[in-house]
């Protein structure tokens, strides 16, 4: 069966654009520190954009008359960031987020490409739904949207979805994220089939029984707070099963939102064996631990839950040594009514598109835990590689998807000012250093601070 990834993202000219290039259709980004992990560039460079493509990257480019010039001294010029784990809530929960508002949130956060998960209402489990998402995105989203389609019908883990048809409609991966396929036979067949279709399987790893009904990590804090816990073992057991099946089927699997040291150990071992296993971690799992739940703050409630400090450190170490390839937000918008309730009743999930850059810069890069280049790679080249999409690189001839970050900019997180429809951020009120200030998609400025 032939495997072709169509360029299904339609042109953006349908969207009104206030800030476009100069008269000659060119935009010159001057004097920024260009960091492109794929090619190893990390130095002061000029970048010339012509229409929707990158025309030239050179130490010094003379601007011709008519070219619009942006002076980016002191700023970082990186490939348009890619968030491969976002929940856009459309169709079904447009009160929480739409493809348009999610796209705007992405642009504001510096992301030029996002992959959206399938657990909408109705779910993205047919080619028609994939086409719907792509069509809505081309009409309303300022950034590129890559649908992740369901692995099983209704994400119920029983009957396989039409994975080839989904791929042909434009899905870049399959995932029942939100759910874990408890039936290992179904999980195995999904992997085999997806491998045939050439798509990676993104796995939300959580044992269906251990910790059922839990609302936070099981440990000292759940004991002190009197809340039912989800033990780390729930994730570790599920990751173990996925890796064993990946070995059997030789499928490409990607472990979503890793939160435990046990999972990191298993993934490290799987990579040593040469298995096609990749993994991601969210900014909140890299920075927060279960202590954040004290006071019953529902903005600290998500799945997988914030874990012990020990687990958090192991996840950070996993990112540092490359066991974890990708940083992805698991942006999960929820309306106020679903969060401003008793902890047990609150919905699981936090938003993240507009805080990822700030959190990563402040707590990983600036603290010397991760090099800037590693951090950028985890947000660009790595997710692009997992999804096999044309993104995450600054190179001649590539689409002009570029993010400019001001590494010195200090700002306070105020979710009320976010482009996202939702406000459920665990970083509300925090002061961060580092923010995206300019986002360019296909040569057009879609966000400017």
């Amino acid at each position, binding site marked *: 069966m032939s495997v072709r990834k169509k360029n299904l993202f339609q042109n953006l000219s349908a969207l009104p654009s206030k800030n476009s290039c100069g008269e000659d259709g060119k935009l010159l980004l001057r004097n920024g520190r260009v960091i492109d992990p794929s090619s190893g560039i990390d130095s002061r460079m000029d970048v010339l954009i012509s229409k929707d493509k990158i025309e030239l990257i050179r130490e010094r480019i003379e601007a011709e008359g008519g070219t619009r010039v942006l002076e980016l001294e002191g700023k970082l010029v990186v490939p348009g960031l890619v968030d491969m784990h976002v929940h856009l809530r459309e169709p079904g929960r447009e009160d929480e987020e739409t493809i348009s508002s999610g796209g705007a949130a992405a642009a504001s956060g510096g992301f030029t490409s996002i992959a959206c998960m399938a657990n909408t209402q109705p779910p993205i489990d047919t080619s028609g739904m994939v086409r719907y998402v792509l069509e809505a995105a081309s009409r309303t989203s300022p950034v590129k949207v890559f649908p992740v389609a369901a692995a099983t019908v209704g994400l119920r883990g029983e009957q396989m979805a039409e994975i080839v048809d989904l791929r042909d409609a434009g899905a870049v991966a399959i995932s029942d994220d939100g759910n874990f396929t408890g039936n290992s036979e179904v999980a195995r067949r999904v992997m085999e089939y997806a491998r045939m279709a050439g798509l990676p399987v993104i796995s939300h790893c959580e044992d269906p029984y251990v910790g059922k009904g839990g609302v936070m990590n099981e440990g000292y804090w759940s004991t002190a*707070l009197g809340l039912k816990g989800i033990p780390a073992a729930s994730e570790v057991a599920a990751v173990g099963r996925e890796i064993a099946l990946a070995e059997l089927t030789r499928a490409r699997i990607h472990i979503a939102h890793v939160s435990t040291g046990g999972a990191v150990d298993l993934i490290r071992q799987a990579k040593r064996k040469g298995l096609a296993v990749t993994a991601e971690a969210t900014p909140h799992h890299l920075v927060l631990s279960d202590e954040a739940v004290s006071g019953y703050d529902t903005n600290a409630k998500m799945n997988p839950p914030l874990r012990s400090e020990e687990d958090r450190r192991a996840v950070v170490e996993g990112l540092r040594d490359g066991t974890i390839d990708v940083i992805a937000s698991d942006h999960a918008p929820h309306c106020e009514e679903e969060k401003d309730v008793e902890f047990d009743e609150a919905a699981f999930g936090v938003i993240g598109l507009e805080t990822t850059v700030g959190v990563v810069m402040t707590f990983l890069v600036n603290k010397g835990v991760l090099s800037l280049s590693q951090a950028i790679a985890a947000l660009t080249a790595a997710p692009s590689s997992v999804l096999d999409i044309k993104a995450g690189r600054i190179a001649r001839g590539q689409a002009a998807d570029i993010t400019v970050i001001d590494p010195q900019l200090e700002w306070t997180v105020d979710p009320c000012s976010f482009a996202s429809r939702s406000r459920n951020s665990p970083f509300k009120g925090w002061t961060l250093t580092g923010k995206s200030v300019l986002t360019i998609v296909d040569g057009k400025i879609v966000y400017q601070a």
Partner: protein
Amino acid sequence: MTGRKDLLGLEDLSGKEIELVLDTARSFKEVLERPIPKVPTLRGKTIANLFFEPSTRTRISFELAEKRLSADTVSFTAAGSSVSKGENLKDTARNIEAMQIDMIVIRHHSSGAPHFLARSLKCSVINAGDGMHEHPTQGLLDIFTIREYKKRIEGLKVVIVGDIAHSRVARSNIWGLLKLGAKVVVCGPWTLMPLGIERLGVGVTSNIDEALEGADVVNVLRIQLERQKSSLLPTLREYARCFGITRERLSAAKGDVLVMHPGPMNRGVEIAQDVADGPFSVILEQVTNGVAVRMAVLYLLSGIEADDKPE
């Protein structure tokens, strides 16, 4: 307790604050022994009891405490209320507060529900039991009872036996007792022992005889009958064999040991018939003390001047 709006748990209180409640409860206990056991201390104050979970003891105890203080009381139980129409907790509470309520006493199945309310309500919130988290007035009355008999808490060996994992009574007792210098040991099957409990500063064992050795106080918790149908316990029979407090087992404890139970009891399961009704049992005194302790809590949170304290 001065300056506090709410009583959400014993974890938040200092040893001194706990002692203040106990001393105040002592005064109110004397009031309860009078022919007319009533004082005008909270006259004009309105207190709403919101019980979202079934309760006999605690609810009646609070109502009596409120009435003995001359407060006006209203009680709400979840069944047949707007909650069954889908009204959320916050709206229910706010609507009640809008009727000029001074204090809300709340029992709820979700841990943290009182904290959630306390954040959004101006009136005082008293936790009458939230999920598995805390039952501060029960902890206070348990400690008060121990103090009545033993005259002190410091240095005593207090053993709490039973389903520690799901017990708010256990947690409140642990916090309160540790702050006053007791040595606390929790005992129960590992399936009902919460992860990390030792980090609170208690001894942990699944050996009942080891736990009871030299104990000054044994606080026996109720085993919920549903646990035997779940994966947590094989049968209540096995639980009774391994952990049931019998006269024989009790001989390992001190000669003047106190046997306590928050109630309601499963006679023959966690506690033998002759222990529940025997010479060491102070279970009924706990109930009597409960009214005095709750009077103290209501009084101390009401913000009434110190001179109005009962003589």
